[in-house]
């Protein structure tokens, strides 16, 4: 067999392995979410019966609070993305375009901050938020989340801004534009794809965060989707796998579709964050 044929064969086998590993748990989640008896694998006597009841229950049973968790997660994530992108763009512009003292220290400092484990922050935050009576509010999550996703967002944006030729904004400044105008009228519009992928990553980071939300919220008024799913309890005792998987599917299907559609931007963002530096 020639090397070319061998390579082809390996690629097809590899694709088969990937197709087996990557989507299976996701597909399983969907399968169970539509099952009338989620324990249908336990014995031959339990049949797989397709049903929408799990979805109907989590949407219509208010005491499960699933929709509240979604609402909270979305509100928090949207505020976080908006604020993060705005201030990271400002800072990214300064770092990529203006010469100032202490630049390296600030960049390396912010990068080093992303090394801290969440556990080294959460205890202090809990005490602080208790003191100012913010436990179980949106702001108790929004502020820590912004700080948490900022370093990576900034890092990625700097990478994008660096790629834009600085001659463009210099020319604009010769024509009398201020720094602020070059940022809002030239750099940001040109870096839109980069800003978009950064926003996507910031959204996913905030939407998925678990430890802060677990510690800083107590019930459905502010509890986010990951905590809701982790602590999911049925109304009748036993683990309601059908409802848990239906909730999981509602949360992850949009993310998976978004990832598949914006695959190119996400890949760009991830690699810019890790490799550009």
């Amino acid at each position, binding site marked *: 067999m020639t090397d070319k044929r061998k390579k082809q064969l390996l690629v097809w086998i590899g694709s088969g392995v990937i197709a087996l590993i990557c989507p299976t748990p*996701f597909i399983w989640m969907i399968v169970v979410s539509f099952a009338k008896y989620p324990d249908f*694998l336990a014995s031959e006597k339990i049949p797989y019966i397709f049903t929408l009841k799990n979805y109907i229950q989590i949407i219509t049973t208010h005491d499960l609070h699933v929709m509240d968790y979604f609402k909270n997660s979305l509100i928090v994530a949207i505020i976080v993305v908006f604020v993060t992108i705005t201030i990271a763009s400002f800072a990214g512009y300064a770092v990529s375009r203006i010469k100032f003292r202490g630049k390296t220290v600030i960049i390396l400092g912010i990068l080093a901050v992303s090394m*801290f484990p969440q556990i080294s*922050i959460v*205890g202090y935050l809990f005490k602080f938020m208790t003191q100012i009576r913010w436990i179980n509010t949106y702001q108790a999550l929004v502020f820590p989340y912004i700080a*948490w996703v900022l370093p990576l967002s900034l890092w990625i944006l700097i990478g994008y801004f660096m790629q834009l030729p600085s001659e463009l904004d210099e020319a604009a*400044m010769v024509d009398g534009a201020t720094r602020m105008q070059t940022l809002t009228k030239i750099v940001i519009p040109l870096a839109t794809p980069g800003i978009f992928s950064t926003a996507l990553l910031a959204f*996913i980071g905030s939407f998925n965060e678990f430890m802060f939300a677990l510690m800083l919220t107590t019930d459905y008024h502010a509890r986010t989707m990951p905590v809701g799913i982790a602590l999911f309890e049925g109304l009748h005792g036993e683990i309601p796998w059908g409802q848990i998987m239906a909730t999981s599917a509602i949360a992850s299907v949009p993310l998976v579709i978004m990832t598949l559609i914006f695959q190119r931007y996400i890949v760009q963002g991830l690699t810019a964050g*890790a490799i550009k530096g």
Partner: protein
Amino acid sequence: MAEQGHRSIIPSRFRGSRATEERFAYMLLAPVVILVGGLILVPVTGTFIKSFYRDVAFLPPVKFIGVLNYKRLLSDIHFLQSTLFTVLFAIAAVLFETVLGMFYAVVINEKFRLRGLMRAIVLIPWAIPTIISAKTWSLIYNFNYGLLNYVFTHLHLSSHPINWLGTSASAFFSIVIADVWKTAPFMAILFLAGLQSVPRELYEAAEVDGASLSKQFFRITLPLLRPVIVIALVFRTIDSLRIFDLIYVLTGGGPGGSTSSVSIYGFKSYILGDFGYGSTVSVFTFLLIFLFTVFYLKAGRFSEGLKL
């Protein structure tokens, strides 16, 4: 990196004075510095200070006790066990992720008809929130009606169902598998970017010289990817040393504390109201991460590649 904006051809009168420019830059940076400083550096410092205090909820007073928490830490068998677990987990997880991620990357880097589809499929685990993937895996590992036991018993790989999350050894590997599944795609994306920058001519030349496929991989691909691999290892090791979400859902640290990571252990101290000791555990968690990072950066001669 820092110099790019400054081969300036513009006379300075258009740019404002150096001092004005600098002030403007600091103004733009202020929100980031304030937020990151106030919400990360201050809490981290606070945690460090608290690690020298006795601070137990409902049991006042809060008292400075010097290094007593640290002494307790070093003789706390459960903490040492958590440390050992965390290190072993990080090594196993990152190792398998790297291999699997490289495998994904090599496959989706080839030109073939289904490449676009395969690139999308590889990203699915990455897109699913960790807590959700953890819940799904815990259902898959379920003793009575989990998919894994169903497959194992029906393919006769095992005569009886296995209690995946019930013994320390199987729980360890169950957690590693779930983690590798979730994070190998991230590795794959980084490696793919690296692969795409390897000039095709190198492989063509190697083919002319009659180098086998495996030789091409080990002699061309791997050495050229080294910088990317080091960066990916640093990122993923830092992340796996602070593992929390997955374990919280899968085993909660059990059975018998055998899969408790340092983050889980610290969190439990906080939940029990022991903030002084929890802080000490947190400081130690950070030290662990710091040590590993320094080791990688030294071993990978990372600083050569980082031109700031």
